């Protein structure tokens, strides 16, 4: 059975089904979408169960010739890193659908299009993580932008069109640079034993260092825009402010992970030498992202903008973990991607709910919500705690792993990065104080508390956040071999503690 193709094609089928629904039955669209995404999520879990932890290399491999004249194959396969990211994506989609049950109704178009776009996006998300052919990856990488673009521009709020365009142009710019680099490495592969896009074969090439540096930059800039890394981040706050909460969750939770995923899968794997060369610069950029994102989050007046900037800070951690080139850094960064997905989802969904209720996302418009809507307030608080990496919640494990992994190789960077945790306390607790504590701001007295549907949506997210905080082992067991394999292939080994002894 072609698991990966099936899981990728299922949402597409769902989308097709929805688009054939007659107008009179348009309200079935959300149910079809929900059912599809649940089936996909279950299939995702099945794949996870059948995944063999100890087997090296890609699993569930599928390989068909697609465009043989360019050596392009439709090849899929997942390692531990891809598996957990796919798993996160397919779990988030049904949650987003349930959470934003009425999101589709405020858009320029009907709800049918909304769910078609969401499901198409899901296919792309799965594809981008599962592709083992660089060309195929690129196809998903770029094609993914289109549904998001319409989701932001069509169903968002405020300056949605401008934000959508900004998002698309930034991403396209990065994507095109990557295209040039992809072409470059493809041409080189042609000189060394035949044109190919196969990631494994490409990683065997010998490339002189100048070329390698340029190609690396082509890939890296694309990923740094996606991730986003300072100073290429300015599209993200705008997009997050404008998009619907559900879209933002997928945008920050999944799409942006493609950037950091790409750094591991492509930058380091294909260009180990250049990765080494650029590491100092990247670590510095990551550090700037951590602190800068945190400071800007503190300075935000809009709750969605705040969450966006916290994400920039978190992506700084992830990037730092990746380029620390230690097992802890890599596994931590990968785990961080998953954890960030869930904690941002929780933050964004709750922020979205309260903004919808209040009709504003300006933090100052709230106040005393803990009295009015206690359950919403508490969920927001827990999500916030996860975002500030409180031990016992999922983000802590990953953030700490990243820091520890960085420290063993780049102590100064780790020390500076650790300062981020103080800022994290500020950027979470300041809005918590302003929005949840204090006297009830006039106009908020009668906001309704969480509904049953919202409970159903948020409960699994909170559960995952808490569970992974205490027991991240299932994920780490899957991630570790892949991290080690990446680092070994790139020629890195962990520093040995001087007093390690035996």
């Amino acid at each position, binding site marked *: 059975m072609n698991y990966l193709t099936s899981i990728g094609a299922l949402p597409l089928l769902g989308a097709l089904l929805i688009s054939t629904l007659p107008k009179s039955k348009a309200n079935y669209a959300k149910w079809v979408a929900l059912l599809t995404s649940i089936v996909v999520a279950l299939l995702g879990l099945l794949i996870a169960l059948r995944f063999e932890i100890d087997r090296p290399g890609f699993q569930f491999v599928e390989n068909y010739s697609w465009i043989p004249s360019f050596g392009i194959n439709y090849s899929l396969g997942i390692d531990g890193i891809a598996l957990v990211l796919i798993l996160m994506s397919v779990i988030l989609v049904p949650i987003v659908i349930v959470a934003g049950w009425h999101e589709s109704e405020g858009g320029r178009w009907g709800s049918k299009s909304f769910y078609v776009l969401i499901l198409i996006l899901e296919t792309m998300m799965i594809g981008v993580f599962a592709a083992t052919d660089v060309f195929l990856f690129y196809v998903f990488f770029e094609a993914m932008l289109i549904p998001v673009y319409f989701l932001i521009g069509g169903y968002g709020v405020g300056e949605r069109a401008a934000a959508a365009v900004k998002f698309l142009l930034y991403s396209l710019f990065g994507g095109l640079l990557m295209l040039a680099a992809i072409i470059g490495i493809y041409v080189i592969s042609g000189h060394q034993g035949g044109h190919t896009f196969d990631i494994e074969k490409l990683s065997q090439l010998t490339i002189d260092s100048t070329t390698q540096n340029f190609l690396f930059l082509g890939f890296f800039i694309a990923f740094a825009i996606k991730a986003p890394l300072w100073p290429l981040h300015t599209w993200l706050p705008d997009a997050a402010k404008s998009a619907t909460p559900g879209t933002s969750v997928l945008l920050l939770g999944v799409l942006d992970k493609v950037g950091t995923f790409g750094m591991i899968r492509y930058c380091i794997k294909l260009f180990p030498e250049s990765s080494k060369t650029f590491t100092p610069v990247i670590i510095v950029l990551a550090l700037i992202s951590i602190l800068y994102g945190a400071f800007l989050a503190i300075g935000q007046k809009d709750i969605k903008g705040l969450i966006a900037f916290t994400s920039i800070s978190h992506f700084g951690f992830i990037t730092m973990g990746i380029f620390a080139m230690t097992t802890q850094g890599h596994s931590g960064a990968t785990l961080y991607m998953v954890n960030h997905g869930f904690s941002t989802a929780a933050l964004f969904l709750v922020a979205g709910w309260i903004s919808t209720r209040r009709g504003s996302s300006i933090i100052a418009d709230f106040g005393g919500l803990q009295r009015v809507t206690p359950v919403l307030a508490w969920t927001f608080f827990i999500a916030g705690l996860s975002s500030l990496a409180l031990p016992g919640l999922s983000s802590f494990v990953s953030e700490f792993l990243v820091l*520890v992994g960085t*420290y063993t190789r780049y102590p100064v960077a780790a020390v500076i990065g650790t300062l981020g945790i103080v800022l994290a306390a500020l950027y979470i607790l300041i809005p918590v104080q302003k929005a949840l504590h204090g006297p009830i701001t006039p106009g908020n007295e009668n906001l309704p508390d969480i509904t049953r549907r919202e409970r159903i949506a948020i409960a699994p997210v909170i559960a995952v956040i808490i569970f992974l905080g205490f027991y991240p*082992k299932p994920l780490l067991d899957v991630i570790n071999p892949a991290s080690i394999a990446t680092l070994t292939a790139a020629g890195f080994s962990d520093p040995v*503690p001087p007093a390690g002894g035996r």
Partner: protein
Amino acid sequence: MTSNNLVYLVALPLFSSGFLMILGRRADKWGHIFATLISASAFGIGAFEFLQMLARPSESRAVTQKLFSWISVGTFQVDASLLLDQLSISFVLLITGVGTLIHIYSIAYMSHDLDRRRFFAFLNFFIAAMLLLVLGDSYLNLYVGWEGVGLASYLLIGFWNQKPEYATAAKKAFVANRVGDVGLSLAIMIAFATFGTVSFSGVEEKVSGASTAALTGIGLMLLLAAAGKSAQFPLQSWLGDAMAGPTPVSALIHAATMVTAGVYLIARSNFIFDNAPTAQLCVVIIGAITLMFGALIGTAKDDIKKALAASTMSQIGYMILATGLGPVGYAFAIMHLLTHGFFKAGMFLGAGSVMHGMDDEVNMRKYGGLGKFMPITAITFGLGYLAIIGVPPFAGFYSKDKIIETAFNAEGIKGLLIGSAALLGALVTAFYMTRVIILTFTGAKRWDEKAHPHESPFLMWGPMAILAIGSVASGFLLSSGNRFVSWLAPVVNSHEADHAEHVERFQPVVVTSMALVAVVIGVAIAIVKYRSQVPRVAPTNVRFFTRIARRDLLQDDFNEVVLMRPGQALTKFLVATDEKAIDGAVRTVGAVVIGSSKGIRKTQTGFVRSYALLILLGAFGLLATIWVVTL
């Protein structure tokens, strides 16, 4: 040795807390009882383990329980695993014992609060986190509890967070704690980078192989962590504001247990500090500074809780000071910690009882002569008072006296300096505590006619009484026959120190006499000063020193000028930078492209002749180019 019971110590209150939160209003009726029972049963487990431990020989008293593999990445292996040894059992008993008493007290104290159930859920959560802190077998496990108690403290300080200043106080406490947490994080990172492990036993085993620099680094970072959690200089400023929380919280968290976690951390890391003299010296200095700092603030406070908080800060300064004095100091530090836990918690509960009777008035200038109206409170408070100023045979005498003695006997000039500081601190302590007693319980009444001071109900005075007994007896019990020192010896490795050549600069008798003289002086000054009429409103034409002492020795002003304002300015600057410079740069690129677009558009004049000219010029241009290129 392993034990299967340890996990329940943490799990029971944790579960109870989550349970009460999830049930919400449905548990309002019985939530407080449930939480108290849970806390009591935790004490029961602790007592059971303690008895078991007593039955074993001293070198095999520690028990462990491995729960599961928590984080496992490469060589970074951390188990969720608990360790109960002589040091942790002391804490477990203190936490669950005092904790249960305070639970009981709170049933009455919070009886009029609509959110009493939530309060108890938080208390249980605190108990769980604090127990995890002292039971974790590695720095990372400790860290979980460490931040957990920080969170509990945040939640409880901000329990009445509808008042903005309370919410601010909560946030301040959390942030200051986080600064300390940076220290703990870094200490763990250095430890892992140095030893390849972060468990206490692992680090202890390999400590000899580490460089002094690494150990000093770890030590200093641990000290930073301790300073944050235990309100030591320079991270002390949050503790006074933390009094915003309900008084039982102040008693439990901000007097008896959580704030002493720093002392625990340093004592637990004795193997690091013993090998890092520089770090040890810093510990001593910080302790000495803080004990003076707190004591001086205490002399100027009119708010009874803030006065007690300053006193707490000062007393923890003593403990920190003691932990910096090497193997002999640890036991005295912990002993003082335990006695302090009794008398300070007792006094806080007493303060709560006073507030309870005085409609939540906290200004001592509006008390006066309350001893008549609340005799039990006055007596229990008074016993705690005698304990804290160090009057024999009350508990504080034994523990503080040992610390002062050890301080004086430290090597070289250091010993004289810190000894004097500790002695002076004792004098000031006697002064300000006497002031509290005089202002509150004696003299003329200064309260409004509306107030009807009355004694608190049994549920409140019962725990106070028990704590008062502790304040009286615990010192003697612990110190007689060096009982506690030898109890802790296997943990803090003080055996060798006992045998080592010890320079006794001052005989114990001398030190004790000096201390008692200091106390008498302190008490006498206070009586002279406050015997006469005390104004209801604090006089403003006071000396410069009083003014800055009232302002907490300018600690908040310092933070505001040095950290907060620059931080806010930086934030504003960065927000502007992001908008103007970074996004601006992107927009500039766009503007340049659009500008050139408009520029080039102008060449499209619509006149066919100009197009022809363009072609002609193009031809010439190409001709010229080809000429240059090929010829």
